[in-house]
């Protein structure tokens, strides 16, 4: 709770006064960049919490984002539900099904982001499958996302080679395109992906889908080191980080720790409970505490 007012990036991010001539990413202040820089200065690692937007409802998503921020999450990844999520395991698949049944869509999620922006400046990243963006139109998606207050975008089924239609709009609006690297990525691909990434690089900790079990931390460590050597971007590690212990171990080797399925599972378990935001918050707080043993930032 102490940190509530710390995340205070310059309001210029939302300024509509920028003209088309200001094209490059760098000129835009971005909440993601700001957060990683701020944490780095304090010697902390970022806790990136994933939620499926609309699970169980978009109103809950709004409450949850704020609860997770209070619990110590530094950045929130909002999943956009898709009918055919090929990169996701059963936990997130089922959450997507619940979200779709609750009526969530990319358009409505952008409205939720807009509403959240009156109450928080925590960096918000959307994780959306390509077709949901394509259906809205790449260019108009970028405009609307920026004006709603989205800071970055992860498209799990869009490698850099297919990002052409999104790049101009993303650059213009300052939206960071966050690409993924995997254990199977070659050195050559690491170079390509790092060059095209903004905000941070998302390192997939295992050869598999979301919610699988992390086994080979040695390989993660080695690959994160390789990625860090190739550029200045922060590296966040996700897939398979499920417990405070996992978070602690991963935080020692990466700049950010992404927890998705474990949080989504928690939400699923207590979605009938009126104390759901607090219960999920407690779990997230335990992750954040585990990540910073010498000087806890959380008030719990």
């Amino acid at each position: 709770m102490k940190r509530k007012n710390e995340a205070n990036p310059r309001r210029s991010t939302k300024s509509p006064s920028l003209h088309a001539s200001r094209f490059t990413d760098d000129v835009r202040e971005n909440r993601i960049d700001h957060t990683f820089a701020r944490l780095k200065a304090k010697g902390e690692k970022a806790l990136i919490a994933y939620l499926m937007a609309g699970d169980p409802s978009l109103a809950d998503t709004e409450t949850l984002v704020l609860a997770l921020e209070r619990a110590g999450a530094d950045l929130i990844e909002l999943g956009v539900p898709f009918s055919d999520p090929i990169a996701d395991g059963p936990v997130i698949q089922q959450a997507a099904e619940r979200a779709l049944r609750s009526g969530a869509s990319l358009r409505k999620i952008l409205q939720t982001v807009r509403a959240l922006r009156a109450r928080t400046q925590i960096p918000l990243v959307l994780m959306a499958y390509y077709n949901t963006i394509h259906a809205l139109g790449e260019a108009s998606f970028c405009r609307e996302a920026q004006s709603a207050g989205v800071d970055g975008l992860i498209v799990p089924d869009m490698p850099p080679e297919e990002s052409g239609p999104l790049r101009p709009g993303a650059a213009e609006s300052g939206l960071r395109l966050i690409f993924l690297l995997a254990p199977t990525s070659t050195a050559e691909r690491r170079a390509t992906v790092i060059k095209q990434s903004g905000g941070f690089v998302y390192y997939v900790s295992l050869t598999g889908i979301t919610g699988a079990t992390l086994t080979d931390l040695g390989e993660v460590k080695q690959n994160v080191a390789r990625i860090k050597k190739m550029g200045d971007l922060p590296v966040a590690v996700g897939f398979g980080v499920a417990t405070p212990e996992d978070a602690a171990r991963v935080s020692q080797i990466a700049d950010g720790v992404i927890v998705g399925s474990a949080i989504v599972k928690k939400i699923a378990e207590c979605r009938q409970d009126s104390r759901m935001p607090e219960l999920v918050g407690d779990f997230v707080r335990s992750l954040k505490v585990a990540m910073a043993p010498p000087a806890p930032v959380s008030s719990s």
Partner: protein
Amino acid sequence: MKLPDPQGRFGQFGGAYVPETLVPALQELEAAYERARNDRAFQKELTDYLTRYVGRPTPLYFAERLTKRFGGAKIYLKREDLCHTGAHKINNAIGQALLARRMRKPRVIAETGAGQHGVAVATVAAMFGLQCEVYMGTEDMQRQALNVFRMRLLGATVTGVDAGSRTLKDAISEAMRDWTTNVRTTHYILGSVLGAHPYPMMIRDFQAIIGREARKQILSAEGRLPDLLIACVGGGSNAIGLFHAFLKDRRVKMVGVEAGGLGVAGGKHAARFATGKPGVLHGTMTYLLQDEDGQINVTHSVSAGLDYAAVGPEHSWLHDSGRAGYTSVTDDEALAAFDLLARDEGIVPALESAHAVAEVVKAAPTLKKRQVMIVNLSGRGDKDVQQVARLRGVTL
């Protein structure tokens, strides 16, 4: 112009929209396929298996009674139903299994809708001694129970997929998840001209033998090229297989037949070109049945093999460029054609292929007697006998 381009594009269609974990595997596959394509030893081995194991070339059969019935164009059937395992699917399964062996992947996986591709993969996996797992929607497992048992007889593990619509779409998603997890040891034998590059190109190349044979056979039978080609289109591998050798013969018309289900107007169908629009599913940009938010629609067809929300990207290209035409027939029209071919010609077609026959019923009377059409009879109907009986209330 040679399509696809190096990025795997057929115009705006195609590409490779996959998670990063799979990108290196697709690049490895593309390189392996490129080497194999130019390797005479590989081509000879493939031809050998197609000849001695699959039973190629398949006959081009003149359907005399059917021709007489309509009094129009001469109707030829390309008998892919006579391939080992009962459908054209094995042309591709053999090609990819040989590639898997060259890439030293001891395990293959596949998705299947009607079960024909699954049976073909289980078959070649048995022959080559590869470990095999087939994903199938539980809805499809029910309507194609015979093929499920066949796959198990052949030593494959059949895994039911209970997500989403529990049909082909969900089986492909699950197979992609398996591949993402086991990519280092596993080759994914995709069954149609779908998915990320290089699949649509490679599978087209493996199926193009259908058209190459048919072109030679019709020239020898009629001394001329056909006026019309007809094939059913689920993903569209049998159709591309027939069409491809004729693409440059500008006077040969081509029609792909999609599943009209309970009728296009009612929304319960799989006619992507009727009401779909371009989008990305399972790795490729192509025509899709989707809602305005980009969520994939649940499709319907009496035929499990055509019951899929996306069409192969090359078909999208052929459609938009106007080189091929696409139409649809309903479940009822397909079932009537199923009977017709059985009674007139003594051939029980697969329900997928019955869609192509149903289009013959519409097209043949409009053509002149001297005109010639070739219909791809992509598979045989043994697998569908139980389902047709059930639909008619017959207890076996």
